C-alpha cells in the first residue's frame, strides 16, 4: 500500500515536471515574439517564419529535393524560418485541408496546389494574390520560365496566381520485357493492344492494372482516345459528347477480354501501380511521378511510356497526351499584405522556382520542367521516353476533373464498374453525370 502510493506520488512529480517544462518553453516563445516586433529598426532583417504547404511529403518522389531547396534558402537567409508543412496527395483529404485552412483564416504563407477547378473557390474569394506585378518587377525571374508553363498558369482573367514548378504527363506505361517475352508488339494501336490483352490474360499476367474506383487516368485517356482533344476538353457543360459513350464501351470491351486485374473493383490506385511495380502487370496508366515511386529496378529499366492508342471510331490522333502544368505556388493575401513577410515570401518563392531547383525536382519526380532552357534528360529511359512523348504530342490536355464539378467526376468514376460489368449502359451513366453537372453548376 505504502509503496504504491509512493510510486503514484513520484509519477505525479514527474508529470508536473513535464508540465513545468512545457509551460516554460511556451513562455519563452511567448516572450520572444514581442521582442522582435519591439526592436525592428536595430536589426537589418527581421525574423520571419513562413509556412509552406505542399504535397511534397510522405512517399512523394520529390520530397527530399524539395526539403533541400528549402534548406538551401534558409541557410542563405538565416532570419527566415520555413515550416515545411506537407500532406500526401494520394487521397482527397489534402484538398479538404487546403480548403479549410483557406476558409478559416489559417492560410499557409505559400501554398503549392492545383491550378484548375480546385483553386477557383479561394481565388474568387480573394484569398490569394495575382502575381503578375511581382513577376514583372523581377524580369530575370520571369524570363526563367518557359512561356508555355506561365501560359498554363494564366487564368481566364489574364492573371497569374500561381508560379509553376514542374509539369506532369499521364501515359500508358508498358513493361517492354513482358511484351518481348510473349512475342507481342508494343500497344501502339488498338489491334495490338487487344491482341496483347488476350495473350497476356491467357497466361495469367494482368494486362492493364487499373482500379475502377480511382479510375481518373482510365477515364481521361479513354475519353481522349474516343472523343479527341476537343471532345475531351469540353467536359459536360455543353451537352453530352456522344463519343464519350464509345470511351466507356471500349472499357467494357477490354474488361470482357479480361484486361483488368480480377480485383480491380476494390483496389486503389497505389495497389494498381504496385501490381505494375511487382512485374505482375504488363501495362498501367499512370502519371509521370510514378516512375520515381516504383522501386523495382528491373521493371523501371524495362518501362516505356506512350499515349493510349486510338480505339476504332475514336477521334483521337493517337498522339494526344494528358498533362501540362497542373499546380503551382500561391502566395496568400494575408502574407502579401504583411510587410514583414511579403519580401521574404517572394524571395523564398524565387528560390523555390529557380531553374536549379526546378531541374532537381523535375529529375526526382519525372516531371517536365517549367524553366526555360532547362532540358530534363530523365534519369531513366522511361522518363526520357515520356519527355519525347510530350514533345511529339499533337495536343496536351488537362484532365477531365478540371472541367467538371467534383461530384460529376465521382459520377463518371462510379460509372466505370457498373458499365464494364454490364449493369448500366454508357448512355445512362452519362445522362446521370450530366444531371449532376447541371445541378452542381446551377
Amino acid at each position: 500500500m505504502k509503496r504504491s502510493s509512493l510510486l503514484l506520488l513520484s509519477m505525479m512529480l514527474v508529470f508536473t515536471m513535464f508540465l513545468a517544462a512545457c509551460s516554460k518553453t511556451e513562455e519563452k516563445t511567448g516572450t520572444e515574439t514581442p521582442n522582435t516586433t519591439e526592436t525592428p529598426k536595430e536589426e537589418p532583417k527581421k525574423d520571419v517564419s513562413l509556412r509552406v504547404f505542399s504535397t511534397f511529403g510522405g512517399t512523394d518522389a520529390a520530397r527530399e529535393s524539395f526539403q533541400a531547396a528549402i534548406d538551401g534558402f534558409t541557410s542563405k537567409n538565416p532570419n527566415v524560418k520555413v515550416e515545411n508543412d506537407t500532406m500526401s496527395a494520394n487521397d482527397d483529404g489534402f484538398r479538404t485541408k487546403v480548403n479549410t485552412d483557406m476558409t478559416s483564416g489559417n492560410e499557409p504563407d505559400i501554398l503549392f496546389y492545383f491550378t484548375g477547378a480546385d483553386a477557383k473557390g479561394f481565388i474568387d474569394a480573394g484569398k490569394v494574390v495575382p502575381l503578375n506585378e511581382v513577376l514583372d518587377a523581377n524580369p530575370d525571374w520571369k524570363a526563367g520560365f518557359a512561356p508555355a508553363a506561365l501560359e498554363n498558369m494564366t487564368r481566364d482573367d489574364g492573371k497569374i496566381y500561381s508560379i509553376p514548378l514542374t509539369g506532369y504527363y499521364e501515359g500508358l506505361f508498358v513493361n517492354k520485357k513482358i511484351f518481348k517475352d510473349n512475342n507481342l508488339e508494343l500497344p501502339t494501336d488498338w489491334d495490338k493492344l487487344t491482341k496483347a490483352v488476350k495473350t497476356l490474360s491467357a497466361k495469367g499476367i494482368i494486362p492493364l492494372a487499373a482500379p475502377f474506383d480511382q479510375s481518373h487516368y482510365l477515364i481521361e485517356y479513354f475519353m481522349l482516345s474516343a472523343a479527341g482533344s476537343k471532345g475531351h476538353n469540353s467536359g459536360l457543360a455543353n451537352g453530352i459528347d456522344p463519343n464519350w459513350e464509345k470511351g466507356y464501351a471500349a472499357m467494357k470491351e477490354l474488361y470482357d477480354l479480361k484486361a483488368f486485374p480480377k480485383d480491380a473493383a476494390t483496389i486503389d490506385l497505389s495497389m494498381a501501380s504496385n501490381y505494375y511495380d511487382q512485374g505482375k502487370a504488363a501495362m498501367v496508366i499512370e502519371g509521370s511521378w510514378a516512375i520515381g515511386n516504383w522501386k523495382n529496378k528491373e521493371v523501371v529499366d524495362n518501362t516505356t511510356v506512350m499515349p493510349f492508342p486510338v480505339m476504332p471510331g475514336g477521334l483521337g490522333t493517337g498522339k494526344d497526351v494528358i498533362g501540362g502544368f497542373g499546380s503551382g505556388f500561391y502566395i496568400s493575401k494575408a502574407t502579401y499584405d504583411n510587410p514583414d513577410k511579403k519580401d521574404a515570401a517572394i524571395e523564398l518563392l524565387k528560390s523555390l522556382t529557380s531553374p536549379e531547383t526546378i531541374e532537381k525536382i523535375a529529375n526526382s519526380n519525372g516531371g517536365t520542367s517549367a524553366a526555360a532552357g532547362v532540358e530534363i534528360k530523365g534519369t531513366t529511359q522511361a522518363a526520357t521516353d515520356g519527355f519525347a512523348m510530350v514533345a511529339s504530342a499533337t495536343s496536351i490536355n488537362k484532365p477531365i476533373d478540371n472541367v467538371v464539378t467534383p461530384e460529376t467526376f465521382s459520377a463518371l468514376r462510379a460509372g466505370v464498374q457498373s458499365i464494364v460489368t454490364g449493369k448500366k449502359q454508357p448512355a445512362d451513366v452519362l445522362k446521370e453525370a450530366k444531371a449532376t453537372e447541371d445541378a452542381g453548376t446551377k
Partner: protein
Amino acid sequence: MKGDRKYILIFLFPMAALMSIFLYYPFFKSLYLSFYRTKGFFDKKFIGWDNYERLVSDKLLGAATLHTLELMLYVLIFQVGISLILATMVDNISKFQRFFRSVFFFPVVISGTAISLLFVLFYNYNFGLLNGILTGLGLEKVLWLSESTALKAIAVPTVWHYVGFYFVLFLTAMSKIPADYYDAGKIEGINGFKKMTKLTIPLILSDIKVVITLAITGTLKVFEFVWVISRAQNNTDVLGTYIYKKALVDQNFGYGSTIAIYMVVLGVILALLANRLLKSDEITY
C-alpha cells in the same frame, strides 16, 4: 444546499462547453447546411427542402443503409456473442485471467486503419496471405472481395476490432455478481452451460443492453474498414463512407450534412428500438 449550486455549475461548465463546441454546434451547423446547395467551401445557396427530396429518392443511400444494417447484424451476432462467450469462459478460470484480459483487449488499442491495411494484405487477390496459403495447398485462388462476399469479409476485422472492448465490459459485470448466487446454484446442481444461460446472462442483462446499444451506434460510424479494404466498392458502401464521399470527395457539404441528419435520426430510432425490445426490470444485488 444553496451554496452547492455554484460548485455544481463550476464543475459542469467545462463539459458543457466541450459538448457545445464539439457536439451541439456542429450538429446545428449541419442542420443549417442541409438546406443549402454548396459549391466547394466558398459558395452556398439556399435551396429549401431540395436536399431532403434528394435524400428520399437516393438509391445509393438506400443501398448504403442496407449495407450498414447488414454489417450491424453481423456485429450484433458475432461481436456481442463472441465477447459474451469469451467473458464467460475467462470468468470461469482462476489462473491467467489477467493474461487473457490483455490479449483479448489488445485489438481495441490498434487503430482501425492499421487493422484494415493488415486485412488488405490478407485479402489481396494477387499476393494476399489467404490466397498464398490456398496456392500453397494447390487450390484455386479466391476473390475474397467479390460483390457477394466483400461485406462479409469486411465484417471480420470490424467484429474482431471491438470484441475485446465488450469482453472487458462483460467480464467486469460478471465479477460484480455475488458469489452466493453461484454457491446456491451449485447446491441446486446447475453447472457449466446451464449456469451461463440461467444465472450469468440474466444477471448481466442490463450490461448486455448497454453493449447492444453501443454496438448499434458503433456500426453506424464504421468508415475506415470499408474505405481502406474495398474503397466502398462491390456492395460495401456504408453510411460512413457514403457521407465521406458526398461531403469531402464531391465537396457537396450541403447534401453531406443532410445525410448526417439522416444518420442521427436513424441511430436514435435504432437505439430506441433496441431498448424497447430488450426491456426488462433492473436487477439489483
